[in-house]
C-alpha cells in the first residue's frame, strides 16, 4: 500500500450536487490513483453520469472538492480549460461533429486547445485512428460510419488530446450487440497500456477483465466499493444484490 509511485489523479471529497431542490449526488468520496481503472455501475438515475460529468465540469457541483492532477476543479473558465486538456470523455451517443471529416474531428482539439501544428495534429490523428483500427475511414464523415466505428473514432478523438484520465459514460449501450466487442477491445487495449480510466458501464466481462475496483451507486450515493470478483460474486448491500439480479435477469 505504501508505494511511492502511486499518485492520486482524481480526489473527490464530500461532493454534493443538486438540480434545483433535487439532490442528484450526495457526499461523494472517491480517489482514483494514476493507472487505476474504476468501473461505475448502478440503476438508471442513480447519478453515475452526473458524477463523472462533474469531474470535467460538464456539470457544476455545489459542495465538496474535486482535484484532478493536483488542480482543484472550479467553475472558473480558465481552470476548466486546463482540466479538459487532461481529461478525455467518451459519450454514449458519440457526439462526433457530423459536418467534419473523421480526420478534422480529431485534429480540431489538439490544434485549438494544445496549439499543435496541423501537420503534427494530422500525424497524431492518423496514429490513433490506426490504433482503433479505422485509419482507412479518415476522409469520411461520421454519419457514414457504423455506430461501433463512430465510437472508436470518439475514443481516438479523446486520445488525441493526450489525456491523463479517460471518462467513459456507457460507451457501448447505444450500440448494436455485434458492434460492442470492437469498442470494448479498444478500451481493454487502452487499459493494458496503463491509462487511468473511469468507466460507467454494465459490461461485466469488461469490468472483470480490467477493473481494479467497482463502484456501485444508488440514489446519488456511493453504496459499495469492491474488486470486480468480490462485487459480482458476493455483493454486500441489498441494493447491489437487487441490481445485479435484475441485470442478470435479462
Amino acid at each position, binding site marked *: 500500500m505504501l508505494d511511492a509511485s502511486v499518485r492520486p489523479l482524481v480526489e473527490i471529497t464530500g461532493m454534493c450536487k443538486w438540480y434545483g431542490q433535487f439532490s442528484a449526488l450526495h457526499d461523494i468520496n472517491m480517489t482514483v490513483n494514476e493507472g487505476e481503472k474504476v468501473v461505475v455501475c448502478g440503476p438508471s438515475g442513480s447519478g453515475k453520469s452526473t458524477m463523472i460529468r462533474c469531474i*470535467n465540469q*460538464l456539470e457544476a457541483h455545489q459542495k465538496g472538492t474535486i482535484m484532478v492532477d493536483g488542480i482543484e476543479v472550479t467553475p472558473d*473558465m480558465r481552470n476548466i*480549460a486546463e482540466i*479538459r*486538456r487532461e481529461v*478525455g*470523455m467518451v*459519450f454514449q*451517443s*458519440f*457526439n*462526433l*461533429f*457530423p*459536418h*467534419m471529416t473523421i480526420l478534422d474531428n480529431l485534429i*480540431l*482539439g489538439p490544434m*485549438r*486547445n494544445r496549439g499543435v501544428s496541423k501537420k503534427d495534429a494530422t500525424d497524431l490523428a492518423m496514429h490513433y485512428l490506426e490504433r482503433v483500427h479505422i485509419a482507412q475511414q479518415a476522409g469520411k464523415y461520421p454519419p457514414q460510419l457504423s455506430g461501433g466505428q463512430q465510437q472508436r473514432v470518439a475514443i481516438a*478523438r*479523446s486520445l488525441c*488530446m493526450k489525456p491523463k484520465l479517460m471518462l467513459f459514460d456507457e460507451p457501448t449501450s447505444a450500440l448494436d450487440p455485434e458492434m460492442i466487442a470492437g469498442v470494448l477491445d479498444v478500451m481493454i487495449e487502452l487499459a493494458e497500456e496503463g491509462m487511468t480510466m473511469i468507466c460507467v458501464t454494465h459490461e461485466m466481462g469488461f469490468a472483470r477483465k480490467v477493473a481494479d475496483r467497482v463502484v456501485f451507486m444508488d440514489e446519488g450515493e456511493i453504496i459499495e466499493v469492491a474488486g470486480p470478483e468480490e462485487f459480482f460474486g458476493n455483493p454486500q448491500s441489498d441494493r447491489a444484490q437487487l441490481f445485479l439480479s435484475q441485470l442478470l435477469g435479462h
Partner: protein
Amino acid sequence: MHGRVTTATPRANRTREDTGFDAAAFGRTIWQVGQAVLVFAVLGFLIWRGAQSMDYSWQWYRVEPFFFREIDGEIIWGPLVRGLMETLRLAGIAGVIAILIGFVAAFARLSDSIAGRIVSKVYLEAIRNTPLLVQLFLFYFVLAPIFGIDRFWAGVLCLAFFEGSFAAEIIRGGITAVDKGQYEGADAIGLTAVDKYRFIIVPQSLPLILPPLTGLLISLIKHSAIVSVIAVSELTTAGLNLIADTFMAFEVWFLVAGIYLSVTITLSILVSMFEHSLNKGKR
C-alpha cells in the same frame, strides 16, 4: 401457405407497366388551369369595367420613358429603373446590417450575461411592439439629427433594426436546434466558447438559418417601400413622383407592383435553386 419459400424477383425484372395516356389526370390538369385563367379574366374585367365607369383613360403607350429613353443612341435610364436600383442598394445594405444585428442580438440573448440578455430582449420587444412607421419617424426626426445622418441612412438603419429583430429570432432558433451533445462534444475536447460556436455550432445551424434568412431579405425589399414617406428616392418614391407629374396613377402602380413582384419572385427562384444544389451536395 405454411412452409412455402419464395425467392425475390430481381428488381430489374419488375418493370412498371405502361398504363398509357391517363385521360382523367389530363382532364383534371386542364380544369385547374382553366380555373386560374377564369379567375384572372374575371378580375381583369372588373378592373377594366371599374376604370371605364370612372372615365379613366389608360395611356400605356406613354410608359416606356418611365424605364428608359434613347437619346443620340445613348440609353438614359428612367425613374423606375433608377428607383429600383436605389431600392436594391437600400435593401442590400440594410440586409447585411440586419444579419449582423441578428447575430449579435441572438448571441446576447443566449449568453450568460444578464446585461446582454436584457438589452437584446428590450430591443426585440421594442421593435416587435411598435409600428414600423413610427420607428421610421423616430429614426428620421429624432436619431438622424442627433447623429447627423442623412435620410438614406436613416432609412437603411431603421430597416436594418426592424429586420434584425426577426433575423435574431431565426438565428437563435437555428442555434438552439443544434443537439446538446454537440456542445458537450466541443466542451469535452476543451474548445473555448468562441471556437465552439465558430467550428461546431454555427456551421451546423447554417442549413437551418439560411432558408428563412433569405426569405427575410426578400421581404426586406418589399418593406423598404416604407422609406418613401421620408422621401428616400427609391422605387415607390419614383412612382409617387411620376404620378404627380403625369396623373397616370393606375399604370404607375401596376408597374411598380409588377417590378417588386418580378424582383422578389426571381430572387425566390434563385434561392430555391441554391438550396436545391446545397441539398444535392450533401448526398
